[in-house]
């Protein structure tokens, strides 16, 4: 994530989220019905620089508003591997006019 990261829910409603470090984020949730999908779409996240698989995990924890009690906690192993190279941000070349056969 970077300092411009923002959060919306799965229905594109804005969520209050606080980035506590480059990897950690705290999101304030609306009411969530039992057994329904919920989540967050985080914008402005930097992809890894290479195809090398992501080496650490995603972790999610839901806590009461007072942060004292935990509802659920899980960790998943990453399955995300980049598949497209980045573009060079600047690509230039120069051409020297040479005569064939000359050193």
């Amino acid at each position, binding site marked *: 994530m970077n300092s411009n990261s923002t959060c919306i829910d799965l229905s594109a409603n804005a969520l209050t989220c606080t980035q506590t470090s480059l990897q950690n984020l*705290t999101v304030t949730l609306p009411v969530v019905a*039992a057994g329904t999908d919920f989540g967050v779409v985080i914008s402005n996240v930097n992809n890894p620089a290479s195809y090398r698989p992501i080496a650490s995990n995603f972790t999610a924890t839901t806590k009461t508003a007072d942060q004292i009690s935990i509802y659920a*906690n899980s960790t998943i192993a990453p399955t995300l*591997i980049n598949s497209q190279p980045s573009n060079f941000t600047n690509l230039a070349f120069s051409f020297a006019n040479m005569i064939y056969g000359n050193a």
Partner: protein
Amino acid sequence: MRIPTDVTITIALASLNNTYTRYSVNGGNFLPGASNSSLNTGYYQINYTNIAQIGAIAAGSRIELRVETVCKNPNNTRIVSPFAITTYSSTSAIETLTGLTVQMTTPAVFYRFTATRVSSQNSAITSYTITLRQEVALPAGTLLFLTLPS
């Protein structure tokens, strides 16, 4: 016996009596225990009415009370109270034990947890979608703590 409603009894209370409530005295066999139960504000009251029907219970005896297989744990790790136990004679209360609490030590797990992203290009700035699902409802203001890979 009082059990806080944070512990959910998953069947109708009318079905609870005798089948799912049992007691044992001094390590003996567990016997059917309750003949009536009620739901009150904040707690279930389960009355084990036949514990001393067969005979007197000696001083210092150990009495175990069970509500079997139909209790669902609280949905978070908050300390839950009040549990309470009161013994009665045929005419009045004998002894009350209050202040009993329980606390879950293991959070539930999300039974859906996925992470997807828009772009798979090296170094791209993209959006990640984290989708979760858990068994219980969450009130507004619940906090979701996310850690993304470093």
